[in-house]
């Protein structure tokens, strides 16, 4: 058995960079797809609304773990062998998009109908209404729940460990296998997760305050 030492700590921190990268991929990818889904959900065309709604219900009704299995093992069997980071990034993107899409749809619909009417009466077209009147108001409403969900994403990246992707949780397991000090090691892992998530919460609070003052 090997004594827990500084190298282990460095190993964990390096693995945390992968957690961070995977979170970033999930958030950026999820945002792009999620915004599209949110706009589809409020479309005036029923088929478009239905497609987005179907996707969201499908993904929200499936455990992230199963999505990971499907994209790594499932696609692998079918001949599309993805490396773990790609499979994990893809799964988390699909997953985050469904939730962000639904969160943001709510934020778009929370802007009063009368804002649409007033901007319509001023002659703005639908694109201009979204870009200048509706979405800027939605963004303010969206900040707290979005950051809350980002924290969920960071923590959910730990599931990628099951497909052999060495991020923070998997690294913790590996270190534990050689040192067998689970309490210490997983406390350290938890502390690193906290260090990643807490600044997000702080930033959200600061943004909320700023947007409130700017109104």
């Amino acid at each position, binding site marked *: 058995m090997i004594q827990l030492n500084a190298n282990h700590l460095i190993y964990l921190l390096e693995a945390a960079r992968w957690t961070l990268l995977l979170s970033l991929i999930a958030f950026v990818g999820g945002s792009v797809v999620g915004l599209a889904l949110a706009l589809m959900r409020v479309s005036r065309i029923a088929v478009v609304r239905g497609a987005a709604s179907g996707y969201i219900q499908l993904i929200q009704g499936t455990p992230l773990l199963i999505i990971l299995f499907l994209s790594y093992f499932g696609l692998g069997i079918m001949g599309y062998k993805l490396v773990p980071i790609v499979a994990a990034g893809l799964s988390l993107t699909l997953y985050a998009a469904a939730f962000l899409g639904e969160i943001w749809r709510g934020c778009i619909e929370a802007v009063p109908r009368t804002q649409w009417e007033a*901007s*319509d009466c*001023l002659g*703005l077209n639908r694109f201009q209404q979204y870009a*200048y*009147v509706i979405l800027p108001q939605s963004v303010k409403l969206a900040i707290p729940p979005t950051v809350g969900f980002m924290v969920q994403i960071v923590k959910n990246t730990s599931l990628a460990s099951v497909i052999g992707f060495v991020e923070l949780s998997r690294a913790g397991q590996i270190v534990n296998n050689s040192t067998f000090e689970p309490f210490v090691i997983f406390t350290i892992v938890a502390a690193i997760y906290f260090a990643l998530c807490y600044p997000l919460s702080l930033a959200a609070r600061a943004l909320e305050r700023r947007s409130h003052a700017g109104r």
Partner: protein
Amino acid sequence: MPAVEGTSEAPREAIIQIRDVVKEFGSLRVLDGVGFDVARGQVTAIVGRSGSGKSTLLRCIAGLETVQAGTITVCGHPVGRPGSAARAQLRRDVGMVFQSYNLFPHLTVERNITLALTLVKKQPREAANAKAAEVLALVGLTDKRLAYPEQLSGGQQQRVAIARSLALSPQVMLFDEVTSALDPELTAEVLAVMEDLARRGMTMITVTHEMGFARRVADLVVFMHQGKVWESGPTDELFAKPKTAEFSQFVSSEL
């Protein structure tokens, strides 16, 4: 062309023509064959009890509701469907002011006014700002240019909303119970702005509960009851000699 003297006043052009308009919400018939004309420069007050269809009529003229039957023509153009050329023309011709002001809360007073000028009328920012200053002076709020809506009183917000519409130089202004959300003091300042507009010759249709204002400012009063134009005519005549029991009852209840 030489000026022609001695001719009597030319017949005034009907700037708005409303013919046999029917509007239903589900099985509820809110407008049941409504029709009247509004001449250029005329101030029309639509009055009536809650549920008589007066606000719905105004929203139909503004194109916010689609009618099931009948026609509404503004400045010679039909109201049209959203996205049509006729609708775009309607937006240039008609300004609308709402009961709940509906200013954009995330934008300054100035940007509320210039938004459509820059986006729809494609004016450069400086010209739009100059126009904003002009209309803000008109409603007496020059010093609130950089304020946000929530920093203003209800009356001030409503005056900004009027200024925002005026900036687009509409032919007709529609007012939908614009003082109903205000207390009496603030009501007066908004009505003063509207009276001023009327004096400047703006064609106006106003749905209102302010009978004093209607009597003082309106040229034409339209009394609506059960989705119909129950009674209409020149203000003085109508108030002096109500033709229907419903209108005389309504007038006495509102005083």
